[in-house]
């Protein structure tokens, strides 16, 4: 097995000055904003909202639920599984598709004023190497408990934007060893939408322990 280098990521939030007051304006923002804005309101939001045990996967759904009380549309948006997207553009397309198809069914709704505006953010994202390296499954297991939550999130969810793979880094690395193909498959199938990152760390550890 090659050495597994643990990376981590962090982001600095930027204000864009752009906002939406209704769903039409939100749709326009989603279509025209930078990819880092999409990243902020999805991948970055999910990372933080997950730990507070909210069922939200993105800021768009939170705003639609809180300020437009349009539960059905919010549900569709929060059912988006970020793990299925390895490019921001494919994720943006999905959000646009959902917003446009809902508009076809509810055209008048899109001009209704929300109780507060949606503020579009952007961010500067940092991806960096940590001082942690795993040489085999055993050392990986030892390090798993000490890596940061951000590092865990990066490798399990976010890195697919870099690798363009439809899988997390951990299972991708494990499956290089023929003995760990089943392990890799089990790790890959962990549903992030029902675990916090703290629970995810525990779950991954429990599964690996069965193979050590």
């Amino acid at each position: 097995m090659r050495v597994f280098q643990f990376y981590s990521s962090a982001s600095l939030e930027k204000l864009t000055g752009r906002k939406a007051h209704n769903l039409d304006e939100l749709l326009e923002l989603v279509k025209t904003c930078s990819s880092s804005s999409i990243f902020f309101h999805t991948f970055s939001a999910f990372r933080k909202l997950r730990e507070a045990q909210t069922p939200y996967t993105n800021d768009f759904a939170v705003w639609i639920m809180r300020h437009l009380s349009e539960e059905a549309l919010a549900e569709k948006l929060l059912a988006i599984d970020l793990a299925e997207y390895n490019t921001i553009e494919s994720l943006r397309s999905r959000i646009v598709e959902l917003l446009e198809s809902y508009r076809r069914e509810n055209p008048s709704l899109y001009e209704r004023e929300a109780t507060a505006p949606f503020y579009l953010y952007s961010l500067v994202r940092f991806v960096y190497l940590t001082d942690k390296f795993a040489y085999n499954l055993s050392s990986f297991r030892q390090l798993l408990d000490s890596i940061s939550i951000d590092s865990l999130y990066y490798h399990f969810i976010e890195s697919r934007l870099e690798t363009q793979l439809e899988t997390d880094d951990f299972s991708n690395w494990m499956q290089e060893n023929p003995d760990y193909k089943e392990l890799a498959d089990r790790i890959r199938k962990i549903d992030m939408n029902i675990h916090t990152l703290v629970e995810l760390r525990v779950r991954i550890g429990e599964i690996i322990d069965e193979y050590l």
Partner: protein
Amino acid sequence: MSIPKLSDYKDVVGRDVVGELYTLASHVGNRSIKMVNSTAVGGGVAEMLHRVVPLLNELGIETGWEVIKGGADFFDITKAFHNALQGKEEHFEQQVFKTYLAYNEMNYQEMSFDEDLIVIHDPQPAALIHWQKKRKNKWVWRCHIDMSHPNQQVWDFLRSYVELYDAAIFSSPLFSPQLKIPQYRFYPAIDPLADKNRELDDDYVTSVMEKYEIPRDKPIVTQISRYDPWKDPVGVIQAFKMARRHVDCRLLMVGDKAADDPEAEKILAQVNEAAGDDPDIKIIFLTHSIPTEINAFQRASDIVLQKSIREGFALTVSEALWKYRPVIGGAVGGIPAQIIHGYTGMLVHSVEGASLQIRTLLQQAELAKRLGQNGHQRVKDEFLITTLLKRYLLLLLALDHPGKSTILLD
């Protein structure tokens, strides 16, 4: 208690969070920061700088802090600017702006600005940059006040200086005006090891409640806030009285009054009148609050209210959430950033809403507990000083790569 070191935060936020700060600091390398503001004591900015400056130094970022000087005339002007930038209608004579600039120039001549990053806090020293004609370092303006509806005359004057900076920082998009320079969002932060937030012995909490003669025979609902109409203290009493028809409880109100607020006495009289001689309502008026006592009041509470109808960031919400209290907050200012309704607390828009949530949370212990736990986590992720330190480290890195949205650090 000695001043906490960065290593002391490991037990509070986790070893991994502190480790991450050191990793990021190693990517930043040997850099220096100078913080500049207008007061060394009093107020949230000074309180925060007293903690952030030594902790950044521990991370290897050589960080200094200087306070600008000025006569009473200067601080009268900057106080008036502060109120105007928060929306107060007032017209200023040209001499006022000249005096402001003269003090800024005097301070500029007495100070040096050789650090890699200069962070100027709030409007008082904002014009210092005007005299720094050629610069190799970066200058950032950190605005802590709500500038969503600024007095146009003052803002037009100030903006010409603010737009000379490399970037500006605001606490919320709600508070920021349109600017030509990049704007970052830094949430304000609480220090979990400060006296106002650190763990307390139960005996101490008990002694504080005894000192103020607050029986603990019933659940306690508390609002700790200045007696000011925007904190809606009368609405809190009304909500409490409505809720108590259904569930037995006590109301504790703790607060001071703004020294420069002529309305304060009137508000306090209204609060006392609304409370009447109700034995379940305890109103405490403090001229100088003791942080550990405020901490004890929060920890002794079953529910903490921040029923504001207009608000800045309201870090009192984060203080209570950090202590695992279920919080009911008005859906204004920075409160919705801290409270995700139904998950990290409850947001309300009316006296009736507050009353209903008091009833709900006092009778649904599991829900109240869950809100407190999730709220604690939300604060841990976003509103602690360790997150603020991380933002400063990232800011140093971001300013090295202007215009880039993804930065790879190997």
